[in-house]
């Protein structure tokens, strides 16, 4: 299927690119390899520093000398390794593939055909900026080992490569009969100038830093980490602190709990501050634009990242509104792409997040993405109230009854305390029920969930991969069902919806999949 494109109609456009000679990346890439190794060690955790600890423990009086020797050795090794990595890294652009040779000890040869390349992304680390070099990442649909980083190539060359790969991809997809795009939407989009969709000032990024859920994740981690260090709490410093606290605020319950609350808030404030700083660094100068059927994003203070995602690859738009964000009337958006779960784990390729926007923006964006749908602007259908009953009785009631029974048997009447648990859970379950909602307009659908915060997911029904209708005995009696829609890389569940609604969703989805011919990825 690649034969349709001859070398003749390729080479004139890219005379510099297409060649039989192996090319090298810039010598400055040595820095990149050094940094890569160091971050690798840091990510690998403390175990990679274990040799150092061993030296410290065994060498006694000479430990500083030994340590210095070790550091010097490591530095030399690192430099040699980085230089060799640079010398051994060669690439070549063939007629329909990228060829890469790399590796110091184990040599790697990789042929990445253009049709397999999913995405081309740029990064501009701060140490490359003086040289006007970038890191070009080629993401493939396959395994992560097939990802290629061309570290340290001049920006113009990177842009040529990106254009070339994308054009080349387009040609192959046109020659392939399966994916011929029936609409002329994309044709007209090509001539369309770049649409600037969003620029985020630092104030909005700060809002994102305050309101995203990372703060709570960090808080959890901090508490967990502090709990791990028994020694920390028993250390003389902490004891002194405790004594000091006892002397100054007294030992009354009120004073102590006030102090505890204050401390907690202090820690949360610090975490929030850290989160804000992080958000600003990562998203600095955030810019979202749209050209040629692709969304482009540039961001970053120390390392400029340029990512782009083809419109067709977006499986759904997630609109997350954590509690704090709702106080500020902001939401954080995510383009969910095919297999984004995998990329998330890689660290480098973070999710395509658009931080801190107002409802007007995401209404527009959703209309732009999903052929003018206005599902987001309508009231959603609520799920059935039996959801509350079911969770209170089965998820909380039965377990707490069991726990109460066992503990009463063992410790006496205090065990009955467990019976209160369902009552405590009730408002939360009720809140969760209220959050669940769903709506579709025959082509697109929106699903809402959440507890304190709120998550909306908008997606075109034809992008569904499979649809499952599940009914428990109780749901069968009440003509209710839970619907599970699997999208590429994510699945959505609507619990306790009317059976007739579930069936409508299923048949409309199947019908959409049958009739919509455009590629779903």
């Amino acid at each position, binding site marked *: 299927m690649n034969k349709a494109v001859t070398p003749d109609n390729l080479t004139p456009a890219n005379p510099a690119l297409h060649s039989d000679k192996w090319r090298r990346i810039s010598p400055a890439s040595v820095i990149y390899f050094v940094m890569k190794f160091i971050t690798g060690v840091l990510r690998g955790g403390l175990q990679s520093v274990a040799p150092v600890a061993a030296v410290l423990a065994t060498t006694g009086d000479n430990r500083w000398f030994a340590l210095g020797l070790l550091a010097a050795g490591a530095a030399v090794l690192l430099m040699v390794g980085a230089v060799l990595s640079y010398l051994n890294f060669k690439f070549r652009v063939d007629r329909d593939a990228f060829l890469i040779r790399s590796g110091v000890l184990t040599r790697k040869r990789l042929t990445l055909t253009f*049709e397999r390349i999913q995405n081309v992304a740029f990064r501009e680390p701060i140490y490359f900026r003086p040289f006007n070099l970038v890191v070009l990442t080629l993401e493939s649909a*396959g395994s992560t080992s097939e990802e290629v980083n061309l570290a340290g190539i001049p920006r113009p060359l990177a842009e040529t490569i990106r254009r070339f790969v994308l054009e080349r991809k387009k040609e192959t997809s046109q020659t392939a009969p399966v994916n011929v795009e029936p609409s002329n939407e994309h044709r007209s989009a090509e001539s369309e100038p770049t649409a600037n969709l969003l620029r985020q000032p630092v104030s909005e990024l700060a809002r994102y830093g305050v309101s995203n859920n990372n703060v709570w994740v960090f808080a959890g981690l901090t508490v967990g980490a502090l709990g791990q260090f028994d020694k920390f709490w028993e250390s003389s410093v902490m004891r002194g602190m405790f004594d000091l606290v006892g002397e100054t605020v007294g030992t009354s319950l009120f004073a102590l709990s006030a102090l505890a609350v204050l401390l907690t808030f202090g820690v949360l404030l610090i975490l929030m501050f850290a989160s804000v700083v992080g958000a600003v660094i990562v998203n600095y100068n955030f810019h979202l634009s749209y050209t040629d059927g692709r969304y482009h994003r540039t961001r970053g203070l120390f390392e400029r990242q340029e990512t782009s995602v083809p419109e067709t690859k977006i499986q759904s738009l997630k609109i997350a509104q954590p509690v704090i964000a709702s106080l500020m009337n902001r939401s954080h958006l995510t383009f969910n792409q095919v297999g984004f779960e995998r990329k998330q784990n890689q660290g480098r390729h973070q999710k395509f997040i658009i931080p801190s926007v107002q409802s007007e923006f995401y209404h527009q964006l959703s209309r732009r993405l999903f052929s003018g749908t206005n599902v987001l602007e309508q009231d959603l259908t609520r799920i059935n109230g039996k959801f509350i009953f079911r969770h209170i009785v089965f998820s909380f009631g039965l377990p707490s009854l069991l726990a109460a029974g066992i503990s009463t048997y063992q410790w006496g009447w205090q065990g009955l305390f467990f019976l209160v648990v369902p009552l405590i859970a009730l408002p939360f379950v009720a809140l969760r029920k209220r959050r669940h909602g769903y709506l579709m307009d025959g082509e697109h659908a929106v699903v809402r969930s959440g507890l304190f915060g709120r998550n909306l997911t908008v997606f075109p029904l034809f992008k*569904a991969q499979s649809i499952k209708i599940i009914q428990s005995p109780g749901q069968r009696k009440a003509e209710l069902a839970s619907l599970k829609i699997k999208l590429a890389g994510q699945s959505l569940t609507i619990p306790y919806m009317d059976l007739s609604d579930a069936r409508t969703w299923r048949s409309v989805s199947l019908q959409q999949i049958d009739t919509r011919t455009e590629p779903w990825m």
Partner: protein
Amino acid sequence: MIDTVNEGNGVVAVDDLPVTSDPSFEQLDRVYVKMVMLTWILVVLTIVLINVGATALSDEGFEPIIDSGATPFVLAGLFFLSVAAFVVPRVLWHSKGYQLHSHNLHYKDGVFWRAVTSLPFARVQHVELESGPLERIFKLATLKFYTAGGGSADIKIPGLPFASASKIRTYVLERSGAKMSGTDPEKESDE
């Protein structure tokens, strides 16, 4: 009630969907009952034999059990397990079934929590035909259908005779544009 989507030539009108526990689901091969029964018996036998062996080898042997008067309970438990060996496979067999349409595959499963999974052929990435040692004894196979939904198979149909399993596979693959047996799922998922 298990419901089903029933379409003529793919395009369905929403109202056409029957709400009955549909008899048009193809059932699995009867031999599947025997296979599940054998699996059940093997598992129970292994557990019982290990326990009996361990008790027999212990210093006191069976005496503590007999003395404690638990013998009737143990026997009742064994009786229950043997009855279950007859009932459970039949119930399981009855709970599963599939429907092939011109564009979709539907699969029902579950005894208490009943589910119907619908899979459009257009989204099938690859199909796997599997036959474990026990299945081979009964000449049965399991068909697994994968989409880009990730991870495990979206639909797993067990208890199919070899011939019909491969017939279904061919039928689905012809309509999906995916490749046989999914040796290279990545290639297919690309444009």
